[in-house]
């Protein structure tokens, strides 16, 4: 097709200027026009489903903020067809913030209060909810510490007050949603985090007997796969209908197109291109995901970035190749990682003339996105670094025995144990119970860095493997001198 009239440089510049914060800070503000709405995330907004699980960068904190914003909530209510969101009051229960908030305790406050709750973590969350209920009922409320004291004296106050609020809300067809995020910052050590998390989950299950009061608990994948956290009666009641935050390729592309549309120059150029390729239906106008229009989306993406990852179809289609090469062991890719790949691709020179970026740029972009993704994970989970470094220059797939031997030779478990002074980002939860390679492997699988295949072999997905210097066995090769 002839795209002579399309100002590809505008699209290219829009991609090169993608704004990528490395994470959503606890008290960040998000504007409605910044929000892209993936179809697959509808479950997050379902008030019935209280537990949302996601890996780093999949949108836990993003949704916490989006839910906390009235304007965005109204937008979500319409887009996702959850009208009750319009009449839902949202309060933050915890988000790991250092800054003092009305209800959510800061990390330090929580540490102090824990001393007062005398081995009864349930009281902390009940007191938190009690205060919110009192506020909504127009009553005076005390400090969190004092409220815990009151509840110690009068345990029934919690159900009295919440019942009263629930009745009132139900009558008015309104709802209360209390959001919890950043549970890994509840404490410095795994023992306490587990205790507080278990208490929170118990609270959430207890709320199921109310009609209009719910929590939304955003949980990391490693906590979700921790058996200890779910070792209490009825835990299946909240585990069974959890929502997984993942991104499908078409949602990731929707996001890329959405971000291009947000740039004024990119906006008009992309719209022209979409009109010429008969792909206007694929434009996520207003942030609304257009997953139903995959063919149009693929056409448009190919018009932006070329069709093939090389000279012909045999090297793969750009549309499928890029997400596949950025996928982790859970077959998903974080939106930031995806956007990074495109952003870097738009920086490669020389720029193509008949499209915004080309496959050579995308190759660079994927490499660079892999690097930043791995570094992101190192931030959250420091123990991944020694675990992968021990595999450097080794070949995958390998057997479990080979992996454990490499970890032993590299003294990986010892290194992880000795580096930590109880900080949770330095050691996986399971490793504190059963120091050994099995626990480490489970943890690596939980964060989708390692994959144990059906044929019993250990594999590392390309996005982490290449960056960590781990090799893929065999292949057609020729001598250096020929």
């Amino acid at each position, binding site marked *: 097709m002839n795209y002579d009239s399309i100002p590809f440089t505008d699209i290219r510049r829009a991609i090169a200027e993608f704004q990528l914060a490395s994470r959503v800070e606890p008290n960040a503000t998000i504007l409605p026009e910044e929000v892209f709405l993936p179809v697959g995330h509808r479950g997050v907004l379902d008030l019935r489903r209280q537990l949302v699980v996601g890996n780093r960068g999949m949108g836990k904190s993003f949704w916490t903020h989006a839910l906390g914003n009235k304007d965005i909530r109204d937008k979500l209510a319409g887009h996702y067809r959850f009208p009750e969101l319009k009449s839902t009051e949202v309060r933050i229960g915890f988000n790991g913030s250092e800054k003092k908030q009305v209800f959510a305790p800061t990390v330090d406050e929580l540490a102090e209060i824990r001393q007062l709750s005398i081995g009864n973590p349930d009281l902390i969350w009940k007191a938190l909810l009690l205060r919110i209920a009192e506020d909504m009922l127009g009553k005076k409320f005390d400090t969190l510490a004092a409220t815990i004291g009151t509840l110690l004296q009068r345990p029934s106050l919690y159900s009295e007050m919440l019942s009263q609020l629930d009745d009132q809300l139900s009558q008015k067809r309104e709802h209360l949603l209390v959001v919890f995020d950043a549970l890994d910052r509840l404490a410095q050590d795994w023992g306490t985090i587990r205790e507080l998390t278990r208490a929170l989950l118990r609270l959430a299950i207890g709320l199921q007997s109310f009609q209009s009061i719910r929590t939304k608990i955003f949980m990391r994948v490693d906590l979700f796969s921790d058996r200890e956290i779910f070792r209490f009666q009825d835990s299946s009641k909240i585990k069974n209908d959890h929502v997984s935050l993942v991104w499908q390729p078409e949602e990731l592309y929707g996001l890329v197109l959405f971000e291009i549309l947000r740039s004024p120059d990119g906006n008009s150029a992309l719209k022209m291109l979409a009109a010429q390729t008969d792909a206007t239906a694929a434009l996520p106008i207003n942030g609304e995901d257009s997953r139903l229009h995959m063919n149009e989306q693929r056409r448009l993406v190919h018009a932006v970035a070329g069709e093939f*990852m*090389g*000279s*012909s*179809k*045999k*090297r*793969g*289609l750009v549309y*499928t*190749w890029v997400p*596949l*090469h950025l*996928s982790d062991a859970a*077959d998903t890719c974080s939106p930031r990682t995806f956007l990074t790949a495109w952003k870097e691709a738009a920086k490669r020179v020389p720029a193509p003339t008949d499209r915004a970026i080309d*496959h*050579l740029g995308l*190759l660079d972009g994927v*490499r660079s996105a892999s690097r930043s993704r791995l570094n992101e994970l190192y931030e959250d989970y420091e123990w991944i670094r020694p675990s992968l470094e021990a595999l450097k220059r080794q070949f995958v*797939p390998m057997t479990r025995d080979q992996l454990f031997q490499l970890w032993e030779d590299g003294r990986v478990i010892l290194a992880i144990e000795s580096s930590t002074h109880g900080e949770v980002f330095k050691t996986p939860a399971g490793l504190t119970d059963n120091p050994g390679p099995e626990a480490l492997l489970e943890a690596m699988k939980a964060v989708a860095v390692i994959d144990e*295949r*059906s*044929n019993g*072999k250990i594999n590392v997905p*390309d996005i982490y493997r*290449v960056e960590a210097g781990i*090799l*893929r*066995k*065999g*292949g*057609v*090769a*020729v*001598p*250096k*001198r*020929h």
Partner: protein
Amino acid sequence: MPVLFDDALPILIEVLNEWGGESFVEMGTVLRDATGRLSFFAHERPPVSAPSETGASASIESPLAHDELDLDPLGRRIVDRLGAYARKDRPVVYPTDDGASPLLTSRERTPVRVGEQFCYLIDRRIVGTGWLAEPVAAATSGPRRLVFASLKGGVGRSTALSVTAADLARRGRNVLVIDLDLEAPGLGHLLLEGGRLPDYGVVDFLVEDGVGGVGNDLLHRFVGTSQLTSSSGGVVDVMPAIGRKSEDRPENILAKLSRAMIEDMTETGTVSVGQQVSSMINRIVAQGSYDAVLIDSRAGLAELAAPAVIGLGATVLLFGTAQTQTIEGYRALFAALQLLAQRDAAQGRSAEWRLALRPVYAKASLNTETADWFRDEIYELYSEYLYDAELEDVTGAQFVPLRFTQQDASAPHAPLIVPFNPAFVDFDPSRQPTQLTEAFYEQSFRPFLDAIDRFLEPAPPEPQN
């Protein structure tokens, strides 16, 4: 412990490495003769002195009369280490020796990885030369070719072929079916019931080709029209392995078979079996207006499997059940193909033929564990033997190597699936014609047939690079 076949090459490379280092090895060429004995063709004289004189003591103990053969120290060392696997008359050949230089630049030289490094190998064979031919990339003109191959029988290969032929004909395409499974022919009976069997078959063609040739006027007597031909759709023509004349004289079949599988001598040189098969197909195809050619073949390591797998420019469907023997069987095949791909790469060809090999997960069960196991193993085979190795330093690489992630459903390694269906166990449409009615096969075969349709699409023009 005497040196046996598998150790011979690694030991030779070890000796050469000690003597002249990596580049001395890589610049030279190892010749393996028809018996398996090795000689090394060096590109230059090695450094004058031996690296260490461990060899000297060995030669004192050795009863071999080196002096008689007038060997240099390196030659003596090779003979000492390799024993029976050294070419004792000339373990090492230098560029100044007779007949040495053509070998060093021969197109037959294949890069082989031995431990940490490469050497070039020329493998002289009497049997199995078909596997040394240069693989043919898919033809851009003429009807598409599809080879239905399997290591063993009983995996539903003929059934799938018959269903494919029936379905294509039903949808208005003309199909030519060729039975290359000469040692266990069966398609003729399956697809040519009653009096439909032609007088002659593939075996006859190959025999006559080597004697007086087959004239165009005779070609129609090698092809029968199948009962699968649809009166409202396309034609299914079948070239069986053996024809009616062979059935009249069964005592001749073995005698003809052994003559079918030999090179033909002509005035201009020899014509390999692969070339004979290829030109046979071209001539038959020219007789009709076919949209697709379906070829039934073994994919074993036997002589006649080679042209079907690498010589016809066909899409090759490798049938297999989810069993270890399938994986290990294909491993031997793929490891041989890897060498051909490496030879292509060393000579600057991209070896696109690798993309035409497609696994078929036959008799697939609903057990996802088994299916996942099979997919994992198949992917590893492709990744280890057929896809390009990863370059450690990819910065500045100007081309994308031929590699695919496992999850890529459009990649060559992604298997086509034919689910197990007990209704097909006693498949014989000549006795039970209902087995090839659309309703009967639709449920089991539709995804497979859809994939076949994509292979049959005309090739898009290759952009110039």
